[in-house]
């Protein structure tokens, strides 16, 4: 087990290095000049050239990458004289657009995304698995048809519109909630909940749909398993059979997909964050793309990649825990 984890982590680091190299290469291949993007009203060739030096894009891509790698371990210094400043290790660089070290930006935006993801995850698992289970237990009845309709609608609706619909209906038309204004839960938990409840719901409604289907089908499949019939034949109560036999079997694929879904959400829920004005990592990432802010782009990409890689490792381990047949020795 220990060796397995070490080996997985080693490959994870290699993968992350590859991701950062690819991000750099892709970025340098873009037909966009970041120096021209940020030069404002005085966009003359000499100003652009000076800007390029300031942003560090005058250096070769190899050198830029080397400075980036070095920065992760020893930090980076910028400017000179009174205008000098530094981004301490682990540094992913400095965003000249936002006047902050990338690590600081990620450190500030990540908790927002994490709260969003965790809350939405809990909600969608409850809604998705719950409605899927109800549908499976009432196969063919109205509950099942309702769940099917929910699934069909849920998986086909774009996040953007659902988000706006939820926002407009609850906040603007009905006036039930004030406009979401993100506050850290440590500062004001009630305001925090006010700001998060709608984005949670939006993400939950949309993601729950596929879990409803997954749970329903998984449970129906499991119910036809001989071992479930044996469970009933043993004289076990319905709830025990459902829990230990049906759900347990249906849970394995759900956990796998949930782990990966959750990880990709941690990389930033771009649309939900935009609609609900949550200052999270998704917004940070999308902004870095629009503004060709390479350090932020690389930083957010890497952090997302870390979560995806970690989630894969965790899902693999969970798989072993959940299903003895694939347990690693």
């Amino acid at each position: 087990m220990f060796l397995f984890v070490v080996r997985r982590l080693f490959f994870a680091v290699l993968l992350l290095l590859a991701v950062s190299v690819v991000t750099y290469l892709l970025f340098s291949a873009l037909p966009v000049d970041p120096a021209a993007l940020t030069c404002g009203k005085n966009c003359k060739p000499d100003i652009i050239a000076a800007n390029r030096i300031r942003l560090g894009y005058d250096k070769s891509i190899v050198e830029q990458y080397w400075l980036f790698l070095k920065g992760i371990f020893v930090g980076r210094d910028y400017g000179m004289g009174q205008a000098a400043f530094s981004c301490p290790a682990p540094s992913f660089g400095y965003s000249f657009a936002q006047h902050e070290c990338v690590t600081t930006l990620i450190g500030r935006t990540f908790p927002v995304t994490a709260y969003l993801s965790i809350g939405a995850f809990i909600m969608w698992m409850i809604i998705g698995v719950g409605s899927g289970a109800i549908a499976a237990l009432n196969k063919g009845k109205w509950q099942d048809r309702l769940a099917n309709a929910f699934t069909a609608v849920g998986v086909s609706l774009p996040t953007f519109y659902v988000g706006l619909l939820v926002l407009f209906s609850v906040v603007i038309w009905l006036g039930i909630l004030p406009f979401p204004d993100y506050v850290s839960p440590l500062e004001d938990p009630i305001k925090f909940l006010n700001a998060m409840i709608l984005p949670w719901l939006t993400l939950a409604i949309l993601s729950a749909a596929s879990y409803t289907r997954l749970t329903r089908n998984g449970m129906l499949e499991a119910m036809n398993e001989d071992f479930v019939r044996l469970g009933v034949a043993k004289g076990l109560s319905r709830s025990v059979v459902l829990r230990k036999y049906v759900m347990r079997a249906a849970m394995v694929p759900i956990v796998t997909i949930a782990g990966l879904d959750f990880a990709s959400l941690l990389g930033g829920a771009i649309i939900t964050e935009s609609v609900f004005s949550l200052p999270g990592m998704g917004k940070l990432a999308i902004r870095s793309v629009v503004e060709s802010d390479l350090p932020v782009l690389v930083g957010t990409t890497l952090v997302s990649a870390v979560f995806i890689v970690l989630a894969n490792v965790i899902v693999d381990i969970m798989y072993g825990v959940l299903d003895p047949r694939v347990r690693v020795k």
Partner: protein
Amino acid sequence: MSSQKPVLIVENLSVSFATPDGIVHAVNDLSFVLHEGETLGIVGESGSGKSVTAASLMRLNNSVTATSTGRVVVAGVDVLSASEADVRRLRGSEIAMVFQDPMSALNPYYTVGYQIAEAYEVHHPEASKAQVNAKVLEMMTKVGIPNPAQRADEYPHQFSGGMRQRIVIAIALVNDPKILIADEPTTALDVTVQAQILDLMLALQVENGMAILLITHDLGVIAEVARDVLVMYAGRVVEKADVEDLFEIPTHPYSWGLLGAVASLEVSSRGHLRTIEGTPPSLLNLPSGCAFHPRCSFASENGSRCTTETPLLVQKGPKHSFSACHLPVERIVEIGQKVGN
């Protein structure tokens, strides 16, 4: 007829399923009695209603789609109409079941020891941890699992098919049930293992005195184990007889075909009933009259009677042989003796 007391009484059992294509009449008007310590075989092709019958005895059929009528009395309780709690009390303690495929009958997520223990604990909530453990080891030893203390902590996938079926039997017998339903218990196993499992079941029957309802399509197994046999076709019993009588003088054209299949068993080693022309009828749309008439080479001997009138189960052959066929008794005995010999 056995003089021992009945442990299972089935009266006019009919089971139908609602499907999107219509109503499937899986079992029609089935009646039989199983006595203490007795072994009754039910034989038939797949789709003859034998597995549905087995499931009905423990009310394991899907409660939404299946409709059952008639009575199934176990320990004085009508399984079909009793409350869920009452039925649950019977399951595993009075009446237990061994499934066809040991590969899928065990829960892959729990150790076999746990699964045996679970079956015991549900009917012995007062048992201590130590008692339960002792019971698990006892059962594993009984069904012939070597090294039970160690193997109890292993998962089903770590066992061979035969070993798994032994575990299933251990689970079924952990509460000393009075009735054991064995639904094709050896079909999925290697031929060499089949005999071992049958032997084990018979040995345990002797020890516990339980009645066994053996459901199979394999007359060879029936011949080895059962005393009385029900032959089912299209959800109905078409012949009911003593094993020896059945093999000696079968009294239904379908049984004649089945016995032909036994003969071919010696050649093909697998008991597929290919010697009967045609295929079993769709349960959605049963043939009129005698359901067997489209495949019966003697149907024409009765004019239109076989296609219009459903035959009743009546004594046709020697001793206790009952058969549902319109052919005259003399004709049946005549043909039956030919087949039997």
